């Protein structure tokens, strides 16, 4: 289950609601589960609620893993062709 998509926080009002945006589509969502969220953060949104603030460092770490993978696979291919 769980259709939740990463969206950017554009604005936060005084009542714990944020305006979030994805490719010009905007919607108001509740930050009751992510009170620490700030404008500019990316959050996972499910049924009108932000579930978690996305961790950019973690995201970059995952992507770096993929880059390592490229180097690893290239080396593996070179070795197996030798």
């Amino acid at each position: 289950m769980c259709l939740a998509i990463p969206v950017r926080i554009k604005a936060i009002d005084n009542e714990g609601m944020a305006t979030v945006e994805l490719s010009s589509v905007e919607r108001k969502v509740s930050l009751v589960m992510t009170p620490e969220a700030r404008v500019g953060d990316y959050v996972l949104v499910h049924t009108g609620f932000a579930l978690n603030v996305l961790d950019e460092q973690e995201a970059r770490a995952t992507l770096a893993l993929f880059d390592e993978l490229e180097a690893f696979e290239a080396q593996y291919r070179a070795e197996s062709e030798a």
Partner: protein
Amino acid sequence: MRYIDEFRDPATAARLVDRIKRLARGRRLRLMEFCGGHTHAIGRYGLGRLLAPEVDLLSGPGCPVCVTSATDLDYAVALAAVPDLVLATFGDMMRVPGSAGRSLMHARSEGADVRLVYSPLDALALAQQLPDRPVVLLGVGFETTAPGVAATLLQAESQTVDNLLLLSLHKTTPPAMRAILCGGDTNLDGIIGPGHVSAVTGSDAWQFVPEEYGIGVAVSGFEPLDMLQAIASLIEMAVEQRPRVENCYGRGVDAHGNAAAQTLLKRCFAPSDAEWRGLGALEESGLALITDLQHRDVRALYPLDVDRAPEPPGCRCGDVLRGVLLPTACPLFGRRCTPRDPVGPCMVSAEGSCAAYYRYAEVQDA
């Protein structure tokens, strides 16, 4: 960083597929994806086809719509017919048939006031707009959805919106996972862990799986690279015989989960026994409203008499949900049971295993 396209890169996907094939060479590994969202993603991106034959992806009972019992559905349909009552539901539930094939959509065609909502907060707004009518939110979903429903009820309390009621069909995932693993007949090599449930519960919630059952869990996001990375991780664990919980969705999930969400759940719900389609009754696997919120429990206010619904004859959804039968192996699949005329919930729900197989059917080689 927008967190979507970066995790959809086809070139990286190809490398991950190569890696998976290499790690799994000479074996046939059975991995269960425990989340309807994953079934959907695997179908949408055609991952099953790319990883065959080394990897078999089985679909487990992670679809909250599919595992809603027919009896519960019959109750919802009966409720919708109560004069003046408004039933607010997510789109997923509209076409699910109860016994005798009757769905909320049928009820609406017969005059029931059934409204589609995207968020529980929409149901609250509806209740505020219609103060003289009971507005019932059909609460379906696991740990991802239930906290939002809880927050909505608490808001209704503080704003004294007394006419917002809840039909809680919410369930929790660890009991279902145990039921699958205890069954003993699934022979799994790994579990692709539900990413958004884990955002709430924390990845530690799955520690019991490697510890008690010796099977690895890789918590996965929903983009293609997320899933391929998680699958690669599970294969490594299986080959090295080092089962553990690996959080492959670090950007959205941590070990302990979302404390605010967990608190919301505790403030509104308590574990209760629940009936799961295909798995039967599982102890403490449902979420029922706590005593202080009984005034919002629609079952207490409308104790309608609904007969216990029998399983449709010939329906193998139970075996499909437990991962012991592929949809294509069910004798009814594609013949008596199609998305247009579904027999069981696995075909009716768009994310049910059978509907996903039907929808994302592999192209047969010419």
